[in-house]
């Protein structure tokens, strides 16, 4: 598997610059490049392919946030960092599922990444809160908010999409939805 890894892995610098520039290509390379390593780790430690995907994506998010947060320093190889983060996340999951976590089969060097993981967990909680809040918002509010804030549609587009008679109506609707969402988000 290391052969596969080395054939398609982007350089560490390439990844960092790519993420800072929101390059989808760099992300692709990164994702495909290191996936086998994590898959191997999870499969050899009581996990399945789906677990590997979840853990790996979470790991990439941790890296993404760290790079975007501007405090990412390459003190080690990116590979080692990714492996360590994945390992930590998977160990936590194993503990939560009260599966045995001793006798972990390791394939790479391991860094201590607890701080990054904690930071990530807080962010992840925010993410889940937002997700839950949006879910419980119901339609059409969820779509309106998502279109406006995530897909960056203009009020005009939203007006047309949802068939409001004028932009003001749309704005009013959005305002109501936003108030409810905020309420849900801050209360939860």
């Amino acid at each position, binding site marked *: *598997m290391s052969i*596969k890894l080395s054939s398609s892995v982007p350089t560490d610098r390439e990844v960092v610059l790519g993420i800072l520039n929101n390059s*989808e290509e760099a*992300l*692709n390379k990164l*994702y*495909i490049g290191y*996936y*086998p390593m994590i*898959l*191997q780790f999870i*499969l*050899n430690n009581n996990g399945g*392919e789906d677990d*590997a*995907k979840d853990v790996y*994506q979470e790991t*990439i*998010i941790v890296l*993404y946030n760290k790079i*975007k947060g501007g405090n990412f320093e390459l003190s080690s190889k990116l590979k080692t960092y990714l492996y360590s983060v994945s390992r930590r996340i998977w160990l936590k999951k194993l503990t939560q599922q009260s599966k045995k976590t001793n006798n972990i*089969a*390791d*394939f790479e060097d391991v860094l201590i990444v607890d701080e990054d993981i904690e930071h990530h967990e807080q*962010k992840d909680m*925010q*993410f889940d*809160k*937002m*997700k839950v809040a949006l879910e419980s918002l119901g339609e059409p509010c969820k779509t309106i908010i998502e279109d406006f*804030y*995530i897909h960056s549609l203009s009020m005009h587009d939203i007006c047309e999409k949802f068939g409001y008679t004028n932009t003001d109506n749309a*704005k*009013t609707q959005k*305002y109501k939805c*936003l108030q409810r969402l*905020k309420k849900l*988000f*801050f209360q939860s």
Partner: protein
Amino acid sequence: MRNEIELEAIIEDYLNGKLTADEQKAFEQLRNNDPIVDHKVVAHKVFLESMKQYADILVLKEQMDAAHNQIDVAAISATVRPHSSKIVRIWRNNKSAIAVAASFLILAMVMLYSIQNQTKQDGSFEALNREVSQIKRSQNNLIRNINTKVQNTTITPAKFGGSGFAISSNGYILTNYHVIKDADSIYVQNSKGSSFKAKRFYTDPVNDIAILKINDNSFDHLGSLPYSIKKAGAGIGEIVYTLGYPKDDVVLGDGYISSKTGLNGDTLAYQVAIPVNPGNSGGPLLDNAGNIVGVINGKENKTDGAAFAVKSRYIVEAVNSIPQDSLSKRIPYGKRSLLQGLKRNKQVEKMQDYVFMIKVY
């Protein structure tokens, strides 16, 4: 309600930095004066950040899912999943450990190899030992060879065979038996170059001793012998010297007794560390005090500085076996030698008239 919506829009524009400078200034004033507005701004800011984060991650997840779909998960997991074979699994899990173990193994092999090399050296050493014993055997032969050589010299005319020394003033010369063994005729020559015909008078093949009698009218009696025979054995380390005729002139050889036994533990002889050559056979071996301690009779060919000398005890036996009245001024036993206390060069000077070259034909 209208105002609320407007306010919300303004707050959002403010947070997104979309207000003009004037509007921004006015809004900030409003915010400072109205805590409710300020609170709304802060809350909205947090919300917007969370929303942005959410949006970012959502986009990221979409991208990752897209990337994930490009991966042939099944194929990769087939290669990396825990192998049914335990050996492969162990190999994968412990690659680095195995690598370390392997390097140790290689190291061990290298060491083993070098040790083996060393044992090879041991082997050659043993072989050397064998060679040494071979040498010994060949040395045995060599002595015989020397003897044969001497025989040969008896066949070849005018070839000197060895050395000898006077044991009495009236022409009795002691030499090695092997020197004269097969001689047709024997001549002795003194240091001045005069030759005298001699005949064998007494032989002792076991001790390799022979006594010659000069039978020549031109031979004048010698004076009193300056040396005496030491009956007691000499110890290891005793400084000794010999005079002999490895060439036409007398040659001094200097050394020490290195062993109380001769070749292969031969108790009849000493081993002497002294440079001797063919022709030295039959020469006297003297200690510093001018006492004869032996007769040079051979050497080990392949070992440096190992010559052999017949012990003086057997000289005494030989001399005693001669009718005593035929010897005039015979060699004294155990008496103080006239050479004692003299320097080596003086000793040699006095000695050389009594040491003869034995020529056999």
